[in-house]
């Protein structure tokens, strides 16, 4: 029975990989095939339009994957070049975005986790703060942008503030939820061993609530990475969001598609990193 199960697993993985590759080839093939630039003039004389537009097609086409791959190769083989404000390597742009995301995110964590602890441990604080949290939480992070720009008067700091404000809520609520849900048995163990409140917090409540807190942190980093693109489109200057918008203004769709893919890859890596941390603090009851 075990043997067949193992065999089934292996073949399931193998078949899943095969299917994924088939889908990729099919998708890319369709995309490539449907977006080929037609042979100029159908092999005959160039039309007046074609002559005017130096042989360009009448309707703009989405660049095919082959072009995107070539662009990706170019960009990734030299990711850190800096040729002026409007021409920086993809690595530099992603670096700016990551810097903003991580700064805002870490600031949020520094505030949200202790505050969440407080709310989770004290029903009074929970009742007092809950109405504010419920009102502030559903606000789109970008709605804060004008106010942030006015108060902070610095686009860079405003972008970081927007990341801060969007990533604070999941961490705050999950920490409070996790701390409030720590089993009374474990708290009793701390009490019967005369642990000080600080030691109880660090040796019992924190490890007990850590998986829930990490879930909140994982949700937050995902939201922060979603929001940074939009925020940078607004504030401009640097960053992957600005890069996408700038390439759109340049009508360079190949670079737009390439940067979209890069946003996805970096987002996935951020999630994987936090997933690995979550594994470290996970425990089985």
């Amino acid at each position, binding site marked *: 029975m075990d043997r067949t199960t193992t065999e089934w697993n292996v073949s399931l993985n193998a078949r899943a990989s095969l299917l994924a590759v088939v889908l990729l080839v099919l998708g890319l093939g369709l995309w490539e095939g449907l977006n080929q630039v037609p042979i100029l003039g159908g092999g005959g004389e160039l039309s007046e339009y074609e002559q005017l537009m130096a042989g360009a097609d009448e309707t703009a086409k989405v660049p095919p994957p082959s072009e995107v791959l070539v662009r990706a190769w170019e960009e990734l083989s030299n990711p850190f070049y800096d040729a002026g404000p409007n021409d920086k390597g993809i690595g530099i742009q992603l670096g700016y975005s990551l810097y903003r995301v991580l700064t805002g995110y870490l600031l949020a964590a520094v505030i949200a986790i202790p505050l969440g602890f407080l709310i989770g441990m004290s029903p009074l604080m929970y009742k007092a703060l809950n109405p504010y949290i419920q009102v502030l939480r559903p606000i789109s992070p970008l709605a804060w942008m004008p106010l942030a720009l006015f108060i902070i008067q610095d686009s860079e700091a405003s972008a970081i503030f927007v990341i801060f404000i969007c990533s604070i809520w999941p961490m705050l609520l999950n920490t409070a939820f996790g701390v409030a849900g720590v089993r009374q048995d*474990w708290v009793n163990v701390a*009490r019967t*061993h005369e642990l000080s409140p600080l030691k109880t917090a660090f040796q019992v409540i924190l*490890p007990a609530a850590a998986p829930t807190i990490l879930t909140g942190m994982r949700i937050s980093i995902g939201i922060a990475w979603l929001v940074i693109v939009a925020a940078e489109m607004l504030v401009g200057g640097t960053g992957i969001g600005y890069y996408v918008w700038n390439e759109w203004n340049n009508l360079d769709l190949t670079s737009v598609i390439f940067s979209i893919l890069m946003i996805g890859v970096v987002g996935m890596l951020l999630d994987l990193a936090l997933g690995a941390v979550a594994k470290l603090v996970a*425990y089985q009851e």
Partner: protein
Amino acid sequence: MSHAFVEVQQAAKRFPGAKGEPDLTVFENVSFQLEKGEFVCIIGHSGCGKSTIMNALAGLDQFSDGTMVMEGKEIDGPGLERGVVFQNYSLLPWLSALENVRFGVRARWKAWSDAKVTEHSLAYLEMVGLKDVVGRKPAQLSGGMRQRVSIARAFATKPKLLLLDEPFGALDALTRGVIQDELIKIWSQDQQTVFMITHDVDEAILLADRILLMTNGPEARIAEAVEIDLPRPRQRGEIVKHPHFYTIRNYLVDFLVNRSGELRTADLDRRGLRYPEAVNPVERASADTPAASDGQRASADTTHDTLVTFTPKETHHG
């Protein structure tokens, strides 16, 4: 009398009733003493407030009335001089077996070096036969092993009073027997005072010097304190062959099945009872005349020839 090791006087637990209704009294007028080095079990049906008494002694719960004094000091909140083994083990699941025991030892002796804490913890884990699995997390241990870790943690801190809340309630009979033996071994070595809740009559006879019998709740009382004078060291296999075993056992089972529900609290209070009456079932059975003051007493004196033998299971929830 005046300087018992642990002294509980006139304890009561009440819950406020719904609007217009009187308070619900779980138990009332509960007084008892524990001597140093004594092993005392408390038996009663669910809902009589055994766990509340235990949690109050642990400092995790409070009586509505009454006082608890241990070595001349009032019990006011949890403390390291009182160790607790919970029914659900209460191990910290993110720590290994060794780290769980170390957790207790480190809390008890803060000045100890890491090596000394580990050495001390390992000694107690070895005593409960877990030397080879000290690195495992609780989730990787069986229920019996987890309870052993919990017992090792409690004994390793050398509390003056050890409180066991149905420690073997969730274990199968075979495992329970093995751990009972280990408990006897570790207890006879350290001679701690133990107060234990159990539902298992045989377990109580095997372990206890005295067994406190509680009547049914609400308004429960501790009716009697049964003395178990079987010689120590006791062994599970041998103890049933002792001529007094079934006299004691039948007395206890009879109490749980019949008398715990019939005894009226008013009867107990009228006699001005403060401490539960000390009863020795063997002496009582050998006395020809049943005690006249209590009509129920007659049935209690029946010997094992006439009583049905109850298995522990039947006494579980009554």
